[in-house]
């Protein structure tokens, strides 16, 4: 299934900056960065559970927020893109 992960991490303190870097790094491991704090992740349920667990462990629930949007299997119909930085389709043809 496709999951959209978005986050807002408060960077007012040094600790916040560290959390931001950690969250971003973890998201990169699981999906494609489509915008600065927006990731598209094609995952199976187990992988998603892992990602959710590790992200929830990193953020500070007082200051930061984290949102998961479940786009399911037919996610291609639910995503439209305009402008620069077009992403790739992880289920499509991958040739570089």
């Amino acid at each position, binding site marked *: 299934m496709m999951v959209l992960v978005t986050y807002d991490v408060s960077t007012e303190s040094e600790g916040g900056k560290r959390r931001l870097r950690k969250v971003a790094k973890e998201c990169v491991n699981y999906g*494609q960065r489509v915008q600065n704090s927006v990731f598209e992740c094609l995952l199976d349920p187990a992988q998603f559970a892992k990602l959710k667990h590790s992200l929830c462990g990193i953020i500070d629930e007082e200051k930061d927020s984290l949102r998961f949007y479940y786009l399911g299997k037919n996610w291609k119909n639910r995503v439209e893109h305009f402008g620069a930085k077009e992403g790739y389709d992880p289920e499509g043809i*991958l040739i570089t």
Partner: protein
Amino acid sequence: MRKLLNTLYVTTPESYLLKDGENVVVRVDGEDRFRIPVHNLEGIVCFGYMGASPQLMRLCTDNNVGLSFLSPSGRFQARVSGKVKGNVHLRRTQYRIADDIGDSLNIAKCFMKGKVVNCRTVLGRGVRDHGDVIDCDKVRYADSLIIGNLLKVDDCINPDALRGIEGNCAKFYFSALDELILKQKDDFFISERNRRPPLDNMNALLSFLYTLLAHDVESALESVGLDPYVGFFHTDRPGRASLALDMMEELRPFLADRLALSMVNLRQISGNDFLKKENGGVIMTDDGKKEVLGAWQKRKQDKIVHPYLKEKISVGLVPYVQAMLMARFLRGDIDGYPPFFMN
């Protein structure tokens, strides 16, 4: 059923593959061109002379991602494989059967029947769909010769007899296949199968597709714990994945030949996508290869109902299902190996 994941094809010759976290990164001239999490991939196929970092190789072996290196023309060169996995009892059974001429001949017959029947289906479909434009009598004549050989498969008492039948069938089949090329007749024709190097466009296209298929079959066999190098029909030779070649026999007509025909007939590929070299060999251009890779990847995502399992699967999983059935047969869970008969 397992999910079919994607395959990454790297065709830019100066690229370098490396690991970053859990990502596979393609770097060209110090710049990251592409990155994808490794768990979205089933395999990575590299064409040309690119490098890969040892850490990336480790990442691939840990995640069961097949990493293969092919020459620019698509000839297999190397693959990275991790620890030997799977069940040692299964592999021992495989070796015992491979050592027994009678047992391995029986399995080889299954492969051969699968191949011949599937070849006939390709021809039959051509007659049915395009009977008005092709020389049906020629195709039907070839088909009748193939049936004659098919009936003799069961009576074979040694592998050489079976090889003879295979050779005959292939000859009739490829001569009839030419009739099924409906468009671009000047650029695409096939009178016989030739390779190393392929001498005409159609042979070059087929060779390229067979290499892609071999990569998939080999990975499939490995993922169920069989040894792709010990075959029942093809004899052992260092560096030759004999069992993968055995299993390819029955899958070629459905997975590769038909794709080649439709690419030509739908003009997805043209004579400009091929280059003739001084020695007479024909190679595909980079654009041509990309076109074929795209069509191949797309074809693999089509859904079919597997004739034996009666389960809906992606075409790309057919090699995996056949490998699984082979493992079940060797374990004694089923009485015979059911070849893949397409409909």
